[in-house]
């Protein structure tokens, strides 16, 4: 017995913590990049963003005055297609990052490879989040330049315009924010359809509900939702009833952070 244990317990040298984190990141990155549909999703997001930006930019560029409710905002116009249509497919990708493993049972292989479940969730969030930041920033800049080119001579602004650069960078962060909301909800709900429905609910339906509330509540509650916060981050004309751009950016970060926290607590407790 003693001899067996002596030979059996020849533990390998413990890798340092950073090495484990790097392993987990490499694991998730390899999984993310090896699914073909993820590239189609990115292409669809890009096509939707650019296509709708072209339409909006052309329409607004053709009119001499601003659209009815207020003064024309060349920045908000830039990101209509991106924020309303481009973000959705990538959010679905975020949901699938977890639920596709859950539905195939691959999550068990993942948890046997990396038994620390917080590490798994953190690595997934880091990898999909980083991919979404890259995609979001690329699309935000593309949409910005495209719109300004279409608006040029009338309402367009350059990147050097005060606030423009921050606005474009901030718009890029809407993508990771929504994707991580999707990832967290996927981890909580563990079913693809349910996860997508919940993500669409959080991102699109709750703000729609807020819009139908009576006047003071509309903004009082609405300013905590992702689209209202995103509006404040990108707009040139701040709405006084909503949060400042800095607080709005915090809202964009708080939603995924809170949902991922709940997801982490749940998956650390649940049997896989």
């Amino acid at each position, binding site marked *: 017995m003693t001899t*067996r*244990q002596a*030979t*059996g*317990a020849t533990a*390998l040298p413990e*890798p340092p913590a950073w*090495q*484990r984190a790097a*392993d987990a990141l*490499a*694991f998730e990155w*390899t*999984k993310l*990049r*090896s*699914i*073909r*549909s993820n*590239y*189609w999703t*990115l*292409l669809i997001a*890009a096509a939707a963003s*650019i296509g709708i930006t072209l339409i909006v930019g052309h329409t607004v560029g053709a009119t001499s*005055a*601003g659209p009815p409710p207020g*003064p024309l*905002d060349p920045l908000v116009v830039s990101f209509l297609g991106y924020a309303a249509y481009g973000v959705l497919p990538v959010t679905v990708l975020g949901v699938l990052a977890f639920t*596709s493993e859950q539905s*195939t*049972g*691959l999550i*068990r*292989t993942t*948890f*046997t*490879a990396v*038994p620390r479940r917080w590490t798994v969730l953190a690595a997934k969030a880091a990898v999909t989040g980083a991919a979404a930041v890259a995609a979001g920033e*690329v699309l935000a*800049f593309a949409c910005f*330049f495209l719109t*300004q*080119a279409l*608006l*040029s*001579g009338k*309402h*367009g*602004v*350059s990147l050097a*315009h*005060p*606030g423009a650069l*921050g606005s474009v960078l901030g718009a890029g962060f809407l993508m990771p924010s929504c994707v991580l909301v999707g990832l967290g909800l996927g981890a909580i709900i563990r079913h693809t359809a349910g996860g997508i429905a919940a993500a669409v609910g959080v991102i699109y339906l709750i703000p729609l509900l807020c819009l139908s509330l009576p006047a003071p509540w509309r903004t009082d509650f609405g300013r905590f939702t992702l689209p209202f916060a995103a509006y404040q981050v990108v*707009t*040139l*004309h*701040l709405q006084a009833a909503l949060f400042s751009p800095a607080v709005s950016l915090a809202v964009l970060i708080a939603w995924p952070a809170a949902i991922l926290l709940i997801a982490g607590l749940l998956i650390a407790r649940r*049997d896989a």
Partner: protein
Amino acid sequence: MTIGATAAGPRPGPGAGALIPILVIAVAFAVFCLVNLARTRQVRYLPKWGWAIIICLSMPWGGIVYLILGPVREAPSLAPGYPARPQPTAGAPRRFPRHRAGGADIEVSSLVKRYGEVTAVDGLSFSVRPGHVTGFLGPNGAGKTTTMRVILGLAAATSGSAVIGGRRYAEIARPLREVGSLLDAQAVHGSRTAWLHLLSIARSNGIGRDRVTEVLGLTGLDAVAGRRVGGFSLGMKQRLGIATALLGDPPVLMFDEPVNGLDPEGVRWIRELLRALAAEGRTVLVSSHLMSEMAMAADQLVIIGRGRLLADTTTERFVESNARRNVLVASPRAADLANLVTARGASVTPEDDGRFAVTGMDSPAIGDLAAEHGIAVHELVPRHASLEDAYLDLTSASTDYRAGGTAPDERISSTAPDGTARR
């Protein structure tokens, strides 16, 4: 942020020159996506430097991004039209180079796992030792998979413990290098290639690409490494699952029903593989609900039913103590001989065509007895009740789901010619 009343008039915006960066971004994005599409399909249209040159010529920074995100390194020679590296066929498993000596014990003690009202595992204790193939047997729903999931840290034990080499699974820093496991061969993402599936798992534990190539060779999957797993047959998926378990060259291996869905050749391959792994001093635990399979592959048996331990023994001892024997007798004076045999304390079961089976006396004794009384004997055939029957006997009381009709017991229990039931 509040500057710029845009309705005031035209302001100097970017002109047509701004379209150039847009086009560059859009084209780069599209090319990047297409390149990666090609990569995931493992189709090598061009060598990787060809891609790099094309991308660098079209947009310098796109090439840089591409190189940072990882140059194309395909699984070796996968695409049709490229010379395939000579690889041994799947038949006999190669010897595995042992990087470390000695497997570790799996110790399960007083393990209880409840799911709400249902008790899946009920105070189970056993240990699995290195150097043997240990068969983990039980009918469906006996708690085999649950036990394995608790050992692997996938499910939390309600009470009791399961440790490998003295440590809980979750405490192992790079677990795939210590414990290889196959729980469900179907648990793969269908749109990943076998190569990338294994590569991702290898990376999670700092295992190199060479080892991925190696396990693909060991399991005979090298020819299909570049194919998407969704198109694999169940047998190929089982091989892929076994390749996953072998990735870290672990001293401890656990397989849950590895022969399910395999053809006879595949079953034999697994049996030989398990034996070879155990012969190298590894700890090998294999679950199955088929006794016949385990009798051939395993030399230790842990049998459970309804979450409780029924037997923990060697296969040999199990056969000796459980496999009952009887003798088939045919005689023109069957009734007389049956009475004589019964008088000597043996029991008799009538069979077809006036023959009967005798339990409790061996064939020489029956032959002598018949000769003593001048009774002719036409047939005298010693028979073994199969291991399968013994196993069914043992587990019948604990089977969750059983087809109606004959209870397994009835096959061996005997009835005297006068109709009195006996054991």
